[in-house]
């Protein structure tokens, strides 16, 4: 099953259980979604798939109000870049609903955000905006790296009584994988590989880069643990710190630029925990995308995100001094 089919299956399974689960977005019906994620979902659940006009702020605000009444809307924002249009309903309203009502209301809304570069769509269709949301108290954020996690995390996001931003990297949509029986809950990181020399922390599409980096390192006799964050907010601090202490070294690999990003937050957690900081044998290695808008030109676009060869070289030179 592909990553895109896993998302569709999660939506379908939740819709079957609960009529209050509705998908709201642009071209999610007969068109099948801009990235063909929803496909024929409208045939299976004709009453729960709702096409909207181009009114991201309006329909997201509407979904926030409906969620406060007990519905479980899932919003599809065609490109994550359009997050600018939903900042007000999500950050000022959904995220603060439970708090500002003294617990009278909650807001179980899920926002699906297709993100990331590699598609040649230019700077306004390729951003990864998670960094801009992580500062907002009351939100949860998820970024799966494989079909099984996409399936289980989307179902968990829909069931969660808080607003959850669900980041889908567009370059993962065709990725194949089986849906595992064991459900991955929100708030848990996954250890993909165990090694003795260094811990690599990553998430979303960059996990592919992390795995390839580990393979290249093995050729040089360096063995890496790989932690896939899965949930970006709240971070699974326990797993991150424990795995860093186990190897005493850490590299953080992410596709978006590193300024104020998820990697920076992970680094802050590591450096501000005395036991973990003391365990470090070398400085934290931060590898992120370039701090530029994403260029259109194919080769230039590729150069804005980290590649495994460069990652392996940086890690090797740090370890071997």
């Amino acid at each position, binding site marked *: 099953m592909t990553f895109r089919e896993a998302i569709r299956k999660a939506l379908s399974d939740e819709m079957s259980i609960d009529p209050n689960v*509705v998908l709201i977005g642009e071209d*999610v019906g007969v068109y099948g979604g801009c990235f063909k994620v929803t496909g024929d979902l409208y045939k299976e659940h004709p009453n729960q798939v709702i096409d909207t*006009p181009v*009114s991201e702020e309006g*329909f997201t605000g509407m979904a926030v109000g409906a969620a406060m009444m007990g519905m479980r809307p899932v919003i599809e924002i065609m490109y994550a870049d359009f997050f600018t249009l939903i900042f007000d309903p999500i950050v000022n309203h959904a995220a603060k609903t439970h708090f*500002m009502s003294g617990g009278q209301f909650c*807001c179980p809304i899920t926002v699906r955000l297709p993100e990331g570069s590699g598609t040649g769509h230019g700077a306004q269709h390729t951003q990864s905006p998670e960094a801009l949301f992580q500062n907002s108290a009351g939100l949860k954020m998820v970024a799966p790296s494989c079909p099984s996690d996409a399936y289980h995390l989307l179902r968990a996001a829909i069931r969660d009584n808080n607003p959850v931003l669900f980041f889908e990297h567009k370059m993962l949509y065709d990725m194949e994988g089986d849906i595992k029986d064991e459900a991955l809950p929100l708030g848990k990181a996954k250890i993909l590989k165990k090694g003795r020399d260094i811990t690599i922390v990553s998430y979303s599409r960059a996990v592919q880069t992390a795995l390839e980096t580990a393979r290249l390192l093995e050729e040089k006799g360096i063995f890496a643990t790989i932690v896939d964050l899965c949930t970006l907010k709240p971070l699974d601090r326990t797993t991150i710190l424990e795995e860093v202490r186990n190897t005493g070294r850490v590299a953080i690999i992410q596709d978006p630029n590193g300024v104020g990003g998820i990697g920076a937050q992970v680094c802050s957690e590591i450096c501000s925990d005395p036991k973990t900081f003391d365990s470090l044998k070398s400085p934290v290695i931060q590898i992120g995308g370039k701090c530029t808008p994403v260029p259109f030109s194919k080769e230039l676009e590729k150069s804005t995100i980290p590649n495994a060869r460069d990652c392996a070289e940086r890690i090797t030179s740090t370890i071997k001094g």
Partner: protein
Amino acid sequence: MDRDALLNLLRLMLDSRFFEEKTEQLFKAGLIHGTTHLANGQEASQAGLCAALDDGDWIVPTHRCHGFTICRGSDPAEMFAEMFGSVHGLAKGLGGSMHMPDSSHWNLGSSAVVGSGVPLATGIAFWNRFQSVGNAGFAASTFSSPKDYPKTPVKNISVAIFGDGASSRGSVHESMNLASIWKLPVLFYCENNHYGMSASSDRMISSSNVASRAGAYDMPGETIDGNDVLAVYEAVRKAVEYIKEGNGPYLLEVMTYRTKGHSKSDRRLYRTAEEEKLWADRDPIKLYERKLVEDGILSAKEIKGLEEERRAYIEEKANKALEESTDRLSPNDVEDMVYATTEDRS
């Protein structure tokens, strides 16, 4: 309307007015932290609207929310408590003057982002239509145009309350379009008090009134005297019936005046004393009291008695809240309020 209903309207207006007067006094005495937005002069709009709603009809007020909150049925003691920041407040002291949600009285609370409550109220209408129609009303592929949507009666409506200032927000226009294409049971209630902070509606709104914009969204629009409580009540009843029949949204604009400044720091340099005097003469409470006397419903003496009773009632509520005002959430409790808990699914 029977005598009780007529008296109830006056009671709601008096409670709202005395609440604002007491609030102003408490602020001036330094007993309340932060800021406040008083709605003196707008009582007919607030009482007329809320009295015309049925149980289960939700409101999403503006940031100038005290009168709407009282008229929808909240306990003024819990409202004062909210402004004192105490745990007995409607939002446990986490909201303040602009945030007084009360789910037991179908009040979602207001947004402090002017105009952002409108899509939320549209969302309540979306849910209401869902409750009444079942999901079928929204199928992505079933209907080719809004005209094909079935006209199905709904049990409850929601009211998106916004001011003349908010009428220029994109989200308000987007909400009107969404509500119209899906025939959502929402009353767009524009409380035009002529000023968004210092900006007069004459300077800031392209059309001569807000209601005329209804035509662009294929819904009825009407402008009425917002200082005449009976006119407001009748107009809202008419709109509520239209919406409940399943016809879709309705835009009602009530013309009123904010006799105080925008907030406590406002010196009102942007308007004239003559203009203020003109509206003071049209004070909605005085207008209504005069009418009740003329119609022989109440004597001048009975009105004076009712005023004294309502002032004492508000005073008592303020004192109760003040006595308990030091009961506060702890900083740890506050952190626990950020996320809602989620039940495990078995």
